[in-house]
């Protein structure tokens, strides 16, 4: 799994590439928690994710809860059909703010 981070104004955009599973989700968790401290809004691009399991979804839920505690915004965009399927299977699709494109995700504030 590769993680890259870039700025779009005051928003931090985190991009993930590869598989998020029990072995890789701790690295994603650390990156997202650290990045959330650096900006009022974090947008996570899931377009290049080939696979995500429940440990990855649990990580996203933890980051969402942390963002709410800190009065910050955490949004997702670029979900592939495979990732959407996991969101539906875990019944979390309505819990997150999910957008199709980066432009929509950035304009959600």
């Amino acid at each position, binding site marked *: 799994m590769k993680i890259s981070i870039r700025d779009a104004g005051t928003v931090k955009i985190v991009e993930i590439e590869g598989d998020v*599973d*029990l072995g890789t989700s701790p690295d994603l968790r650390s990156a997202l928690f650290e990045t959330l401290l650096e900006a009022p809004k974090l947008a996570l691009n899931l377009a290049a994710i080939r*696979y995500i399991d429940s440990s990855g979804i*649990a990580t996203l*839920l933890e980051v969402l809860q942390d963002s709410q505690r800190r009065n910050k915004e955490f949004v997702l965009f670029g979900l592939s059909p*495979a990732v959407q399927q996991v969101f539906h299977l875990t*019944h979390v699709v309505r819990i997150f703010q999910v957008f199709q494109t980066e432009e929509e995700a950035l304009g959600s504030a």
Partner: protein
Amino acid sequence: MSLQLKFVMPSDPRYLPVVRGAIGPLAAAMGWDESDCRAITLALDEAVANIIRHAYHNRADGLIELECRESADGLEVTLLDNGEAPDRTRVCARAIACDQPGGLGTHIIKDVMDTVSYQATPAGNRFVATKRLRKTI
């Protein structure tokens, strides 16, 4: 001759991509479509990950035996391990559609597979799951 697959692996999460790489194509060869193959792969990845986390407490030196077998009406998967037995009171204890991060994996397994059972046997903890292949005529 029916399709089957059997291997033993360490309880190391680095083997999870190997499991996924085997299960998806096997399910496809048995006749499931792409979406079902993804769901079956996810469910079995979750089952193996649960063994790593809960039976072996993230120790990488345990052993997990995985067997997939094409049955008369679909797929039967058996996982064996020698870690701590599962606490049945915690299986699917999490409410669905809530924002708590834990306990998602067992719901995925239950939703995707048609039958799921956990047994403590002399050979170790035995997880068996089946999924029927619904053929369209």
